[in-house]
């Protein structure tokens, strides 16, 4: 598998030859994937990242971020029959991110999994554009807020007229561990009848009944919350076992 890593501003090309090309200038990083690839981004400092997926290519992205001194813009461009599985795991303070997902190619398909733990105010604007027929987007945003922190998820799914047989699915959930007020705006802008579109949004606390069930098996309350948080934040991510273990360790250390 072709794999590149972006750590801070350092782009590491692991002998990918011409499978992946990158270009960076003035705080903008462009990645073009021409064959099936993996991209790992850790605390990247680029102000804008553009990732394009060529025809018939599958791209798996994992991004981990706990350094939040900037505002980032992402643009994903998917061409014919391409697929992108985008996994983001953030545990951050104040942060804003703008994401544009352009499903330009016929039957292009994106799975977008954003899992965030928030310790301050965070805002995510996610725009999904179905610009071709038979395009599919599955967007899963899961957030946990601590103390007085908050998360604002605004998700705009757009299907233009004529983009028939497209499927748009949004699932947005925020679990509140403190007292902060969070917002979810799950918007659908649909201009064609022959499509499927679903959106869901919920903000709440972990269920006391679930915690009680865990307690009845001898699991103390704080460890019960850890288990629930691990499930909530990591269950949607498509990552290998080793990475999952690393992420579990991070979640276990998140303060309640």
């Amino acid at each position, binding site marked *: 598998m072709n794999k590149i890593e972006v750590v801070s501003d350092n782009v590491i090309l692991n002998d990918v030859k011409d499978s992946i090309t990158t270009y960076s200038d003035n705080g903008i990083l462009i990645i073009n994937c021409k064959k099936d690839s993996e991209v790992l981004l850790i605390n990247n400092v680029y102000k804008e990242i553009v990732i394009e997926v060529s025809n018939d290519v599958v791209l798996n992205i994992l991004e981990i971020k706990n350094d939040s001194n900037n505002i980032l813009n992402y643009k994903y461009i998917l061409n014919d029959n391409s697929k992108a599985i985008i996994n983001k795991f953030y545990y951050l303070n104040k942060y804003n991110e703008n994401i544009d997902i352009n499903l330009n190619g016929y039957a292009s398909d994106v799975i977008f999994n954003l899992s965030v733990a928030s310790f301050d105010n965070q805002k995510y604007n996610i725009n999904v554009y179905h610009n071709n027929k038979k395009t599919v987007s599955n967007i899963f945003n899961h957030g946990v807020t601590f103390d007085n922190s908050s998360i604002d998820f605004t998700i705009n799914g757009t299907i233009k007229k004529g983009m028939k047989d497209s499927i748009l699915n949004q699932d947005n959930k925020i679990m509140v561990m403190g007292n902060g007020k969070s917002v979810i705006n799950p918007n659908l802008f649909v201009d064609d009848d022959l499509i499927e579109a679903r959106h869901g949004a919920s903000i709440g606390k972990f*269920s006391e*009944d*679930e915690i*009680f*069930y*865990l*307690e*009845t*098996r*001898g*699991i*103390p*309350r704080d*460890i*019960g919350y850890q*288990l*629930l948080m*691990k*499930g*909530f934040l*990591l*269950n949607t991510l498509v990552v290998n076992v080793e990475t999952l273990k690393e992420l579990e360790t991070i979640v276990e250390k998140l303060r309640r």
Partner: protein
Amino acid sequence: MLLKIENLSVSIDGKKILNDYNLQINSGETHVIMGPNGSGKSTLSKTIMGDNHYDITNGNIYFNNQKINDLKTDERARLGIFLAMQSPMEIEGVSNADFLRTALSIKNSGDINLYEFAKKVEKAFSSLNMDKNMIHRSLNVGFSGGERKKNEILQMLMLEPKLIILDEIDSGLDIDSLKIVADNINAYKNANPNTGVLIITHHYRLLDYIKPDYVHIMTCGKITKTGDYQLALELENHGFNVVNKLDKQSAIKENTDHE
């Protein structure tokens, strides 16, 4: 004395559910509580387990001679009390394996041998005739009613409690699954003869497989009659109202005879 409940009164939202309730279970004994809907059976099980929705307004609960009124639910569980729930929770994202490993690791103060854990899980799955892949699935998510009940027994086998409370474990089980569940409880009890069992049920059929030492009828938050296996048969034939009524009539007759 494994469990002693003494003059226990319990309310929820100001409404009294258990009223001056008394029950004693010795090591190795199997007790059955039967009663109509709303008589307080599940309240009793959850109060023993320390569910903080229920307020103890009077009385005490002792486990192995230790007063447990003020212990948290997880502390009670780690003492060896296990409640197999009437409606086991679905928890998305928490796998059966993670859940069991966490519970066992805490029970064993952080010490868990993964090889032994895997062997024990495999044996339990096999004896309950459950699909082994369920260990990797989210806790009870997408499980049928019967699978959830079997999963409760699986947890019981893994955690090895001293007191087992089975709250309507028979509901949702088909005939074959009921026998499998009962066989596993009996096998556990044979291997751990000091284990106490408290069965809460509406139906007689579970008692075809697990023979009780005592059967109690519970009505309006109190035990109104205690007997043996024959009492459960009477209930099956005549229903709660008739048995309670017969009991009252015989008490009146007894009093008249005395007079």
